[in-house]
């Protein structure tokens, strides 16, 4: 079953007819099946983040259609989108974006709190997920008083708590050293394999990307190529590097 289906997405900044306008996306088209773990890669300025923002309803496309869980999100109003995001989507951001003023547990509950879910349901769901990620015992602590790894797990827990159709991850390893990156990516693999969560991750880190099942490469605002893992991360990593070399630019960065 298709969880996400993007058709001919364009995004133009600065007005359609304007000479100064820039085309960030130019007819992106792909789809994601349930249980998939897709990485989106591309050189800086290729439109990765724009794409992710559009797919997750944070930004709007200039044209094209996006269907998530059989709903057309580009036709929704802003408020409908907000409701849709907290009910159907999960988010993991660079730097985790936990709110410092809330405890880990409250942070994790946040999407459900916003949605005014039943208290017992929230507690149960929270306990289930936090236990899975071994952070249940520290639920009453504040983000700054726990380790970076624990914060990551809390952030991932938060993205899963509402049982999302798809989890969007924006450079989740962006600011991390290789050891922490490895830990985070293992978490993603875990939720993908054990919880059957569908994940869409934007990254420029080839190592992180090698955990994915499938990589879509973007260049100049359009899908350039796509590769699928055969199950061996090492081999997949090599292929990613090759693709990046073909795309240009990014191989030296690793």
């Amino acid at each position: 079953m298709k969880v996400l289906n993007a058709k001919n997405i364009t995004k133009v900044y600065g007005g359609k007819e304007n000479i100064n306008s820039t085309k960030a996306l130019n007819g992106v088209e792909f789809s994601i099946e349930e249980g998939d773990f897709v990485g989106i890669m591309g050189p800086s300025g290729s439109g990765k983040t724009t794409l992710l923002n559009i797919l997750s309803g944070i930004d709007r496309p200039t044209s094209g259609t996006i269907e998530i869980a059989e709903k057309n999100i580009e036709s929704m109003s802003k408020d409908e989108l907000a409701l849709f995001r907290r009910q159907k989507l999960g988010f993991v951001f660079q730097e985790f974006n936990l709110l410092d003023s809330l405890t880990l547990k409250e942070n994790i509950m946040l999407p459900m709190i916003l949605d005014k879910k039943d208290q017992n349901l929230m507690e149960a769901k929270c306990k289930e997920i936090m236990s899975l990620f071994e952070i249940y015992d520290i639920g009453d602590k504040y983000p700054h008083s726990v380790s970076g790894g624990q914060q990551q797990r809390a952030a991932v827990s938060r993205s899963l708590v509402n049982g999302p159709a798809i989890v969007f991850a924006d450079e989740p390893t962006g600011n991390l050293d290789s050891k922490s990156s490895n830990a985070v990516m293992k978490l993603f693999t875990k939720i993908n394999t054990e919880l059957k969560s569908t994940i869409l991750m934007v990254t420029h880190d080839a190592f992180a990307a090698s955990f994915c099942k499938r990589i879509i490469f973007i260049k100049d605002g359009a899908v350039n190529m796509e590769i699928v893992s055969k199950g061996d991360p090492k081999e997949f990593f090599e292929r990613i590097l090759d693709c990046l070399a073909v795309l240009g630019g990014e191989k030296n960065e690793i």
Partner: protein
Amino acid sequence: MKFKDIAIKNFKVNLKKYLSYFLCSGFSVTIFFMYSTILFNRSINDSGDKEIINMVFYISLVVIALFSIFFINYAHTAFIKSRYKEFGIYMTLGMTTKDIRKIILIENLLIIFSSLISGLVTGLLFSRLFQMIVASILDIENLSYAINSFSFVLSISLFAFIFLIVLIFSRAAASKFEIGELLKKSRENEREIKSRILPGILGITVLALSLISFVCISEYDELNSNMIVVVPHILVIFAGGYMTISFMGMAVMCMMKKNPKRYFKNLLVLTEITHKFNQNKKIIFVLSILSSMIVFFVASPFSLYSLSEKISGINQPHHLEFASVYNANKINEQTLEDIFKESPTKLKSETKVEFLSLKFKTDENATDILGAKPVISQSRYNQLTKSNLSLQKGEVFNAITAWQPGTFGISKGKTLSLTAGETSVNFHVVDSARAPWVSSGNSFPSNSGLVLNDGDYAALKEKIISTNIGTYYIFDFDNWKGTGKAIESLKAELNQPNKQNPLGLNESQKMLTVLSRLETYDTLKRAYSMFMFVTTVMGILFFIAAGSVLFFKQYTEIGSAKEKFYKLFKIGITKKEARKILSKELAVTFFAPLIFGSIMGYAFIYFMTHLVGGQDVMTEFMQNATKVVFGYFVFQAGFFLVTRKKYVGEVLEKF
């Protein structure tokens, strides 16, 4: 590109941050300058009320100067704080603290000069309007507009001094800058909140108890004027207020946690407000104090002003009165009748009371203004004051009429000797207490009057010379406000025979003046309007200060709020929900200090009213204070709405 260019470039980029600092300084300069033009205006100095007006404006200037120090310093600090991160980056790139100090100095000099000049120019432009307003409020005729060079000298030197102080402080602070701290400071604003109920409960208990106790002691004359009792009370009230502000949020949060359903429903608002209070407890506390000052300073004179009619009625119960004695104020019936016939308002009642002006002596060496006391017979006293004194032969009752406390040397149980002509007679003082008198105390100036048994009174009357037998003339009219003409002609008439006296009036005769409700009212109203003018200006200044502090606070928080709400936006908060949270948070920050301040303000007003013995008008006083508080809330609400629109708009920009 030279160092100077960097500083200038910075100035251009950071213009928005500078703007508030610039406006605060410029505003202070404008206000100060406008006031100083009045102080140095010769035509005011030539007018009748010179001394009062000079004092009023002198005090106002001092207050404005103090206010400017606080205000400019606050604006400056807020301004420097908002740039910590920038300085941190500069230092990382290799600037020394000396360089940073140089940047701060150059920027400040630019702001200071521009604000000083524009402040003076605005002040100059508005001073004419201001002088006209002042003249009409204070009823000063022939005020000619004038600008004196002293105003410039004074304003420039004062603000040069203030800026110098501010600069010295900021330079001292800048030399302690550490890169790490500068970079961190902008982020460390969200600290953990410990869940404790007790301190919050304690705080509010201390506040409530100290307020109640303060109100209670107000009613006791021995306690309310005793600094050792009053000062600790005020300090404890402030401490209680501070504790409440610091810890109440936590306590509420803890209590709410017991009901998870409600707790989670309000989670974001609650944590947001608690954190804001925790971070800004000092600001909120200062705002509360400022608010209490606004309420107190504006409400008291406003109440006095609007109560001047009632107060003049208390101070001067009869519409027109005078005492005729010592050959002064002699008038015959026919003349009186003629005067009142022409009066536009009709005479309602007329009372004449005979009294004796007697020299007196006590063991305590009591004295009085004229060296004599008015003495009245018991039957006449009881009749006119509706009392029922019954004095035996040889007894005297001392009715104290002065507003100052004390018995003025005539105590119960002691002996008082009265001198009539050649003979002195001793009397036993049966009581010496505050009591009504047949006339208001000042028509025959004295701090008390004496009442004697009718027999004793008649005996003394026999012995004294006729000029010491006096008469109180007491008149009431249909409408005391229309008695102006009668007062004028009466005064003219009474002064006439005295004029014929070649020696002129002696000191005692001069003190026997005509008293009227109308004049008392006018004097009170004039004094209160002056009082109100000064304190209202202070109130407005405090209001502006409080408003600016709030504005700066919100302004410096926009960045972190934006970030936070963008996170929430991504997770899926709707604009409506976010706006609701922000509104609630803002409302608490805006109105909590006002509520605290109003409560304290009420307590201070209650206390002050008791202190000056104004229990009679307490209800009206409180009603008027409530009007002021209400007005303050309305103003603040307007201010809140404007800030909310701007703040919410900016924070939710990306929504």
